[in-house]
């Protein structure tokens, strides 16, 4: 199913934030906003739910640390106990540094891989942006023309109130 999109292009962060807030107040559905940098406060303006990535990372870190403690115990005290300087085979305090490092490694690698996975980023992926310049100096606010209450001229006037430099309608083909 294809959908009709309404794109407003802005040149400053303040205008973009104001336009997004105004669109949501008027009851329009903000599909996405394209920005050259992470604009602080846009998250709230767009009404995005907080990311759940921290939980994934926490669990991965925990799993990595748990595995490493078990592995160090198993190799040092079970599989082939070696007497090193008369120290106990299961010397837990000595396992702390490596466990910490493996926890950080698992959490960090997990964070990056989950980011790529959740955002569907992969090598050589074709970048699709509604207008050119969103990686340079343009901000694009994309609204969905969801129902009959969407009056194009009204939205256009609203965007122009926030100094939109360009406004256009696009048809997004079904994915």
């Amino acid at each position: 199913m294809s959908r009709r999109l309404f794109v407003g292009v802005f040149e400053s962060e303040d205008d973009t934030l104001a336009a997004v807030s105004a669109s949501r107040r008027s009851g329009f559905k903000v599909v996405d906003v394209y920005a050259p940098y992470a604009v602080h406060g846009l998250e709230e303006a767009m009404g995005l739910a907080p990311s759940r990535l921290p939980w994934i990372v926490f669990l991965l870190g925990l799993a990595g640390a748990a595995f490493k403690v078990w592995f160090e115990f198993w190799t040092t005290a079970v599989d082939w106990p070696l007497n090193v300087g008369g120290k106990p085979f299961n010397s837990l305090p000595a396992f702390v540094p490596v466990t910490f490092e493996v926890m950080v490694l698992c959490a960090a690698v997990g964070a990056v891989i989950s980011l790529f996975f959740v955002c569907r980023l992969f090598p050589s992926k074709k970048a699709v942006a509604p207008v050119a310049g969103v990686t340079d100096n343009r901000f694009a606010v994309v609204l969905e023309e969801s129902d009959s209450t969407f009056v194009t001229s009204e939205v256009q006037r609203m965007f122009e109130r926030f100094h939109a430099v360009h406004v256009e309608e696009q048809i997004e083909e079904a994915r």
Partner: protein
Amino acid sequence: MAEAALALRPPLIEGEKTPAQVTQDVCAPMEARPSALWWAALLVSASLLLLGVVSITYEIATGIGTWGENRTIGWAFDITNFVFWIGIGHAGTLISAILFLFRQRWRTSVNRAAEAMTIFAVMCAGIFPVIHTGRPWFAYWMFPYPNSRGSLWVNFRSPLIWDFFAIATYFTVSAMFWYIGLLPDLATIRDRTKSAWRRRVASFFSLGWNGSYRAWQRYEVVYLMLAGLGTPLVISVHTIVSWDFATAVLPGWHATIFPPYFVAGAIFSGMAMVLTLMIIARRLMHLEEYITLRHIDRMCKLVIATSGIVGLSYATEFFTALYSGNRYEQFVFFNRALGPMYWAYWTMVSCNVLIPLLLWVKRVRTSVAAVFVISILINVGMWFERFVIIVTSLSRDFIPANWFHYAPTGVEVATLLGSFGLFFTLFLLFCRFVPVIAVAEVKGVLKHGRSRPEFNHE
């Protein structure tokens, strides 16, 4: 009052830039032909790198006997170089992770280059323990994998294994942190470049980044988490490096002060190296408006703080030795300051404690030439710090019959020069092919189109 202070505070980036100008200013030097100066610098660095390759090849083919080490002094130049480079590698993560968590927004101008420096410094550091093993082709034995030697596992109680895990993790996490930060900038290059091969490379590595805010939101979360993980990591790495020494019973090494002492020293030397490189890069790439005198001033203040901690550690070590009543411990410290290698000790003290005192003077902090010279002297001093700790402690330990002296051979000096060659070759290539300034992050601290005060923590 607060509003007045905010209004009066000068911008982080000079010249009232717009986002488009930032893109242009950072990307233009990469798209132009390299200057003659760049070629000359690359030629010198690549020659040094070649020297290093030759000397390491010779050492591996012949044996560790090509070095000046002996049965008394088993760690000398190689481990000094290792600790020196790994210390330099700490500033990048300090700037990118710790200063990020502290919301020090001035970091945006220097973090990219500092992170690159970290990665290259860790690469240089990694070479030394591997060749020091004498049989570098067995370096993979450090990894605990099921093997045909009865599955003989590595000794997880050994600080050397901790070190292996720390360095490997640090390298991986730093490289990922750097790449994640680079992602939006690669997309910027992809969208603006005219050269076909550059676009192809940029679109491969930019992973289809299109500036969608749904991606930006998660990106910011991941960046924050990497910073949060990187902060304890950077402290753990040099702590573990210091345990390589502190867990031994040797006087001069066996000290509980070592972890904070080493971490402060690492940040100190790393900041000095960042200053050296940034002063060169801002001149070479014409980035004076991005890396301003205020950035240099901030970094100098970090240098002052860490230099103070290092100086305090030197004094504490002496006091602990005197107060311990342990004759061996006392002897080591008198030997450091007044023994045959007194010159190394006093080079260390003057470069690390006395000369940085000049930075308390604002006139010195705002003179680029003075800061450049001081930053190089600090690097010399920090190299000598590791040399003093390692060599003087080993050369005269408990029994005078064991005492011996140490002098580096040509091969060792050539290997050290080679590591500088590797470092600077990589850094020059980085300046040429990767945006030296984090474009997307700098756009976020411009005054352009922003009315909200966001600078109250910078």
